């Protein structure tokens, strides 16, 4: 993609956001759609997030134990390493990348399908701001629910690390619990949740942009969906770097 096209896309993205953040036509309609999206985006993602978090927590613990096979490193370092990996990077970033795939493709294909079947035109012709009606509840719901999902992921990651790590015999219950409590910095959780708020905005807005401006037919809807995931991930990783630099460096 040439630089001019990239600039044009960024400009069009911000113009769309300008339309999205207009006052909703009716607040009760907005709140109904908001809770619907909270359910679809947040509650609907809990299953996959739970499974991934439990097993990734276990794998991180076992890998940490494998790496710390030195008599000079205390065994509680396994819990400590697992804790920091889960809180700093796995739960906020990796879970968000997974959600970019699940939620992003769903948003882009929903809006893309509505675009090609003229449903978005129908909303506009009625005098309803389609961008605000369709996209604003998705962004608001994501920003609201993502921190809860990531917090649950952090908790389940530790549970997975504890239960499966102990079951695998790589760490004792006492040492794991001592490790996750050792020199705990609450700011790490704050940092993770701040990142999550940004990711909660990036994923639905970038995906909605690709879906909203779909042109063509069902083939293009699929392509928009793929582009939505790819660009959401790229922007998410870029912001992950910038926010880490800003908040931790």
């Amino acid at each position, binding site marked *: 993609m040439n630089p001019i096209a990239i600039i044009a896309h960024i400009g069009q993205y911000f113009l769309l956001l300008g339309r999205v953040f207009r006052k909703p*036509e*009716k607040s009760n*309609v907005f709140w109904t759609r908001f809770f619907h999206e909270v359910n679809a985006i947040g509650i609907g993602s809990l299953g996959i997030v739970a499974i991934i978090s439990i097993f990734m927590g276990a794998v991180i613990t076992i890998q940490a134990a494998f790496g710390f096979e030195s008599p000079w490193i205390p065994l509680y370092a396994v819990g400590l390493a697992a804790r920091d990996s889960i809180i700093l990077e796995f739960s906020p970033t990796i879970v968000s990348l997974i959600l970019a795939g699940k939620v992003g493709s769903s948003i882009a294909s929903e809006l893309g399908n*509505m675009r090609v*079947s*003229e*449903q978005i*035109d*129908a909303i*506009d*012709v*009625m*005098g*309803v*701001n389609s961008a605000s009606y369709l996209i604003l509840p998705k962004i608001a719901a994501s920003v609201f629910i993502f921190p809860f999902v990531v917090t649950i992921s952090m908790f389940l990651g530790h549970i997975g690390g504890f239960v499966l790590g102990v079951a695998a015999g790589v760490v004792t219950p006492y040492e794991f619990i001592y490790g996750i409590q050792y020199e705990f910095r609450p700011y790490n959780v704050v940092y993770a949740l701040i990142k999550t708020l940004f990711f909660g905005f990036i994923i639905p807005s970038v995906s909605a942009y690709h879906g909203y401006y779909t042109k063509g037919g069902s083939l293009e809807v699929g392509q928009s969906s793929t582009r939505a995931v790819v660009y959401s991930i790229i922007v998410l990783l870029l912001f992950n770097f910038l926010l880490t630099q800003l908040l931790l460096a």
Partner: protein
Amino acid sequence: MIEVRGLSKAFGEKVVLKDFNFTFEQGKSNLIIGESGTGKSVLIKCMVGLILPEQGQVLYHGKDFLTMSYEEQKEVRKQIGMLFQGSALFDSMTVEDNIMFPLTMFTNMTKGEKEARVQFCLDRVNLPQAAKLYPAELSGGMKKRVAIARAIAVKPRYLFCDEPNSGLDPKTSILIDELIKEITLEYDMTTLVITHDMNSVLEIGDKIAFLHKGNKEWEGTRKEILYAENEILSKFVYATKFLQHFRSKLQAEKDSLTKGD
């Protein structure tokens, strides 16, 4: 009444509408006809602001839609009911919710009042039992009728129909045409129908404009169209075997009259 003055639209090098002028009259079915790709749908989309034209005016009761502010445009749009080519029903909603949508967005009706209005609209389009169905459960003709019900739910002043008969069998097409005609008179609306179906033209065309390669080639009524002395229009009008047969009969009658003289 809607007046279109000097409307032009091009996509890159390709000019699809050239200096289009037409007055869409209130209480009448105004038809835009022409072959596929002559700019009919572009015209309707320019008129409702879905596409921005290069130049021209679209006057809704004297006010230019294209120079209005966003909020003013929204007020005009609230008075527009539109029937899309593919019906454009919201597939995640039931028929009832589809028709209720504009009522929820623009009125302060209670749930009971909205349900009563939805049922009235469904009765009007002859689908009294369809409220709880989803669009995927409806036939093409039923979808069009639900779309008409949604369009008339807020009693609009203007009804825009983009190829209302596309993909329908002749019998259902006639039903849709009759419905459009009746509703136009009932609500005294300014109705604009885009079509290339000659049956519709002869059934409901109170005022007709023929578009060819972006130009308005001819303007008249359904009584005049069969006798119009325009070669391009004649080719379009008499494209079907049925109407070719009619023209042959017409010509034979004309010839016999000439001989009789």
